[in-house]
C-alpha cells in the first residue's frame, strides 16, 4: 500500500456526541488496523472533550478535531480532502447516513476514488481489502474490491456490531484548522424533529412490523405496545401504508426504508420480494402469520402460524414479565 497507512473513521456527530454508526465503524477500523499494526484515527467536527473521550474509549488512537460546522457536504469534502492529502490514510470509513453518503460521494467524484458502499464487513486478503456487502437482490452477499487508494467505504447504522468500549482508554488529540474558501452553502437552521425516534427505522435495533393481516389503524396499536416493551420501532409493509393504516414513514421495503435490525418481527406480512428486499438482512426474523404458505416463512428464522391478534398481545404480556416492564 505504498505510503498510505492507518484506518480513519469520519465521525459524524449529533448534539455534540458521535453518532452510534461512528462507534460501530471504529470496531471495523480497529479490526482492519490491527492486522497491519496501523493506528485508528477519528476525525470529528467538535471541540468538546466528551466526544473525544468517547471516540478514544471506542478505539481511536488519534482524534483529529476540526471546527464544528465544517463537516457538511461541500465544506466537509474540502476539509477531509485536505486532511487526506496531509496524512495519507489507507482506509477511510464513513457512516452511510444522508450526510455521510454525500461526503463519500463528493470525495469519490473529486478524487476519482471508488467507494465500497453499505458494507457489512471488510477483510484483508494480502494487500487488498475485500469488502462484503449485500448483492443487489438482497439474497446474497457480494465481495467487492476497490482498485483505488485510499479505500473509501460506508456502512449503514446497525450493519456493524458495536465494539466494546474501554473506559479509561486514551490516545492523542490534535486540532486541525483548515482554511476554507468562502462557500455558497449554509445551514440555515436545525431543529429537533418531534417524535423522531418513532420512525427512525434505519437505525432501529428492533422492529415490530405489520402488514395486511393487521387490518386497520387500531390493529397497529398492539404492535406499538409490543414495540414499546421491546424498546423497538414500528414498521409496516406497503399494503398497510397504501390502505392508510399507518404513515409512509414506517414503510419497510424497496419502495420504503431499508432496515437491518437485530430483530424483525413481521406480523401479518406475506413476505413479497419487495418487502423482503428492505429487511432481509435483519439478524433474526420472526414471522407471525395465519397462512402457513406465506412466503415470509421461507426467510424467517422463526415462525408462528397463528392469529397475530392473539399472538402479539400474548408475546407482549410474556415479555413484560420477563423484562420487568
Amino acid at each position, binding site marked *: 500500500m505504498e505510503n498510505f497507512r492507518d484506518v480513519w473513521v469520519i465521525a459524524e456527530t449529533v448534539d455534540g456526541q458521535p453518532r452510534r454508526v461512528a462507534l460501530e465503524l471504529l470496531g471495523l477500523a480497529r479490526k482492519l488496523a490491527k492486522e497491519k499494526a496501523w493506528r485508528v484515527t477519528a476525525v470529528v467536527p467538535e471541540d468538546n472533550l466528551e466526544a473525544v473521550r468517547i471516540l478514544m474509549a471506542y478505539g481511536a488512537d488519534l482524534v483529529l478535531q476540526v471546527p464544528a460546522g465544517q463537516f457538511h457536504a461541500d465544506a466537509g469534502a474540502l476539509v477531509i480532502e485536505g486532511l487526506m492529502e496531509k496524512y495519507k490514510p489507507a482506509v477511510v470509513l464513513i457512516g452511510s447516513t444522508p450526510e455521510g453518503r454525500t461526503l463519500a460521494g463528493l470525495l469519490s467524484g473529486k478524487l476519482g476514488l471508488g467507494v465500497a458502499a*453499505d458494507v457489512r464487513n471488510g477483510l484483508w486478503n494480502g494487500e487488498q481489502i475485500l469488502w462484503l456487502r449485500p448483492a443487489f437482490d438482497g439474497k446474497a452477499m457480494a465481495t467487492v474490491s476497490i482498485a483505488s487508494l485510499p479505500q473509501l467505504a460506508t456502512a449503514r447504522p446497525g450493519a456493524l456490531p458495536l465494539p466494546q468500549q474501554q473506559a479509561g482508554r486514551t490516545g492523542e488529540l490534535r486540532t486541525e484548522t483548515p482554511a476554507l474558501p468562502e462557500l455558497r452553502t449554509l445551514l440555515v437552521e436545525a431543529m429537533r424533529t418531534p417524535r423522531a425516534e418513532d420512525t427512525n427505522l434505519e437505525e432501529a435495533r428492533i422492529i415490530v412490523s405489520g402488514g395486511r393481516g393487521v387490518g386497520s389503524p387500531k390493529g397497529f396499536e398492539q404492535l406499538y405496545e409490543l414495540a414499546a416493551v421491546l424498546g423497538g420501532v414500528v414498521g409496516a409493509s406497503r399494503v398497510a401504508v397504501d390502505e392508510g393504516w399507518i404513515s409512509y414513514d414506517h414503510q419497510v421495503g424497496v419502495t420504503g426504508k431499508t432496515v437491518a435490525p437485530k430483530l424483525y418481527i413481521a406480523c401479518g406480512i406475506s413476505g413479497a420480494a419487495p418487502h423482503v428486499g428492505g429487511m432481509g438482512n435483519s439478524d433474526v426474523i420472526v414471522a407471525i402469520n395465519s397462512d402457513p404458505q406465506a412466503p415470509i416463512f421461507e426467510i424467517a428464522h422463526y415462525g408462528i402460524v397463528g392469529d397475530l391478534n392473539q399472538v402479539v398481545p400474548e408475546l407482549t404480556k410474556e415479555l413484560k414479565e420477563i423484562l420487568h416492564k
Partner: protein
Amino acid sequence: MEILVLVKQTKEWEGLPAMLNPADQNALEAALQMKDRFGGKLTVLTMGPAGAESILKECLARGADSAVLVQDDALAGSDTLVTARVLAAAAKKLGAFDLVIAGAQSIDGATGQVGPKVAALLGLPILAYARELSLEENILKIVRDNNPLTETWQTRLPALCTVVQGANKPRSAILKNKLAANRAQIPVWTAADLGLEASALVSPSTVAGAWKPQKAAVGTKLTSVKELVKVLMEQKVLS
C-alpha cells in the same frame, strides 16, 4: 431557467417491473414545479440500456422539454463513479444548467452515490436528501431530515440537489403529452460522443464474488409464544 434532471431506470426484480426510479419521479416533479413557476427549459438525462428510452418518454409525457439517452455496451456494469462521469460529461455537452436535480437514491442500489459524485465532477454545490425545496432570487433552500434533526439548508445557484422519495406527488402524464412523447426522437449518445478517456470508463470497483451467507437456519416453526420468548432470549436479541 435551465434545469437538468438525472433519472434512472431501475432493474426488473421479482414482481417489481423496471421503472422510473421513484425518487427520480419526485425529483422530476420538483423540477417541473420550478419550471411552472419560473419558466425555462427542462432536460432529462439517463445512462442506461436501449430500453431506458421508455422512462425518458415518460418524463417527456409529464412535461420535460427534451431528453437524452446515453447508451453504450461498453458502459454496461459500470459502477456509480463511472456512471457519474458519464452523466457529468453529458451534462457538460448539453450546456450550462442553473439547477441539476436527481433522486437521492435508487431502489435498486440505494447507496446515494451518483448525485454527489456528479456534483463534484461538475463543480456544483450540493444540497442532498431534500424533502422540500424552494427557490427565491437565485437562492435554493431545502428542508431535509437528519435524524433527530430537521435541517434547512440553502445555497446559490447553479447547484445540484437530490430529492428523497415521497417528497411530493408526481403528476401523471396527460394524454396529449403522451402521444407527443411517444413520437419524440430521443438522441442516443455513446461513450465516444462524450469524449471521455478510456481510463475514465474503468470502474475502480470489482465484484469479486457472491455467496449465500451462513445465517441462523431459517424455517424453525414454533408452536407457542413461550417457545418464541425462550428462543429470543437465547439469540440475545432482546434489548
